[in-house]
């Protein structure tokens, strides 16, 4: 759910489908993978470009809140670990951009849409990372929530997306563990350090719950995406799973989830919990979160400042190729 509220096309009944669409749906129902260049409904292609693109943008923008702490990590070891983690996020973004490109969209188009605000990235990255404990909370909660969504997506119907997810999942659990490790250290530290950990949890709890997207009753795009197996679980299912997994982990740390109504529900075998403030979520998605302008500004600046370098390398490559060709001709 680095992809939230991905717009999908309307769901069709079997009677409304063309023979091609029927055959396509049957392949998906049989668990076959759809590969690039094979026939696919235009809506499937478009929805996937939006979803994979949004997912890729989230990985790339997601480097910024953590990059903020690389130069200020408390030890050299923590700095090296954080650097490796942020480098992984860049790699994950690249795997996903490549998967999106197999659907006929170019890298530059995707980036242009991010920079112009026409494509989104996850709402979570529009919150600031104020203390070192936030690095712990981000790894533990944000990567934890991401894993919850990404593990089932390994079985998604689109081959290149599925393969990207398999690679990502292999690497992602390091991210969550390093976050939890930071939290354990903070919680075993001075009372001030433990208070920092609690403060980080307080600020990241509800934004993490928002990562799964709006409640199922307000989620208008789910049905078709689930039929196409590009969404494997509903938002509420994943959110519930995340809460059930995270509460005992918070207890182990001796931290309190900032929700007075959080309570074990024996009957459903899960926790009852408070919904996040959805008006805040929609405001952040619409561009009015605490860091939207800063995040997008940093991305646009990096892209524009790097233009001369990208062009320079292309010019060098073209000249080197010309020289090689001339040398070959001279030798003949």
């Amino acid at each position, binding site marked *: 759910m680095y992809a939230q509220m991905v717009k999908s096309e309307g769901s069709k009944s079997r009677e409304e489908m063309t023979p091609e669409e029927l055959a396509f749906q049957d392949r998906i129902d049989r668990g076959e993978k759809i590969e690039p260049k094979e026939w696919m409904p235009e809506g499937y292609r478009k929805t996937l470009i939006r979803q994979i693109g949004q997912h890729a943008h989230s990985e790339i923008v997601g480097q910024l809140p953590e990059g903020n702490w690389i130069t200020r990590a408390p030890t050299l070891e923590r700095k090296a670990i954080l650097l490796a983690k942020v480098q992984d996020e860049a790699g994950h973004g*690249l795997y996903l951009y490549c998967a999106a490109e197999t659907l006929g969209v170019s890298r530059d188009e995707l980036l242009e849409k991010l920079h112009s605000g026409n494509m989104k990235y996850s709402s979570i990255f529009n919150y600031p990372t104020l203390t070192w404990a936030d690095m712990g909370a981000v790894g533990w909660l944000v990567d934890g929530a991401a894993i919850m969504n990404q593990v089932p997506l390994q079985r998604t119907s689109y081959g290149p997306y599925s393969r990207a997810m398999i690679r990502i999942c292999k*690497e992602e659990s390091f991210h969550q563990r390093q976050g939890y490790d930071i939290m354990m250290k903070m919680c075993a530290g001075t009372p001030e350090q433990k208070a920092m950990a609690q403060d980080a949890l307080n600020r990241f709890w509800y934004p993490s719950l928002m990562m799964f997207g709006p409640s199922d009753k307000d989620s208008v795009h789910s049905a078709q995406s689930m039929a196409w197996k590009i969404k494997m679980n509903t938002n509420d299912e994943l959110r519930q799973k995340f809460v059930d997994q995270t509460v005992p982990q918070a207890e182990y740390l001796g931290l309190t989830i900032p929700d007075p109504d959080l309570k074990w529900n024996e009957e459903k075998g899960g926790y009852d919990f408070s919904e996040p403030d959805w008006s805040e979520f929609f405001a952040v998605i619409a561009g009015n979160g605490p860091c939207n302008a800063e995040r997008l500004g940093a991305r646009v600046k990096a892209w524009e400042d790097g233009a001369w370098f990208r062009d320079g390398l292309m010019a060098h490559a073209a000249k*080197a190729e010309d020289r090689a060709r001339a040398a070959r001709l001279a030798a003949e």
Partner: protein
Amino acid sequence: MSSEWPLWEIFIRGQHGLNHRHVGSLHAPDAEMAIRNARDVYTRRNEGVSIWVVKANDITASSPSEKGPLFDPSNSKVYRHPTFFDIPDEVGHM
């Protein structure tokens, strides 16, 4: 100018002497940079001992619509599999 860097397909040979295997793709201005980038993108955890990079444009792929004509003929040739032949137990391992 601003033209997009070309796309390269990346193949990596793992530790255990198997064939190079396609792992994904990336953009790079030339082959040398493609190898350097592939090192960072695809072998951060010791995944490989050798990298091949090939310009995506230079790859010719079979078309999905040819799948039937290309691959169906092998369906009827089950005798190509050793399990097609019954060898009596007395003969021993073969």
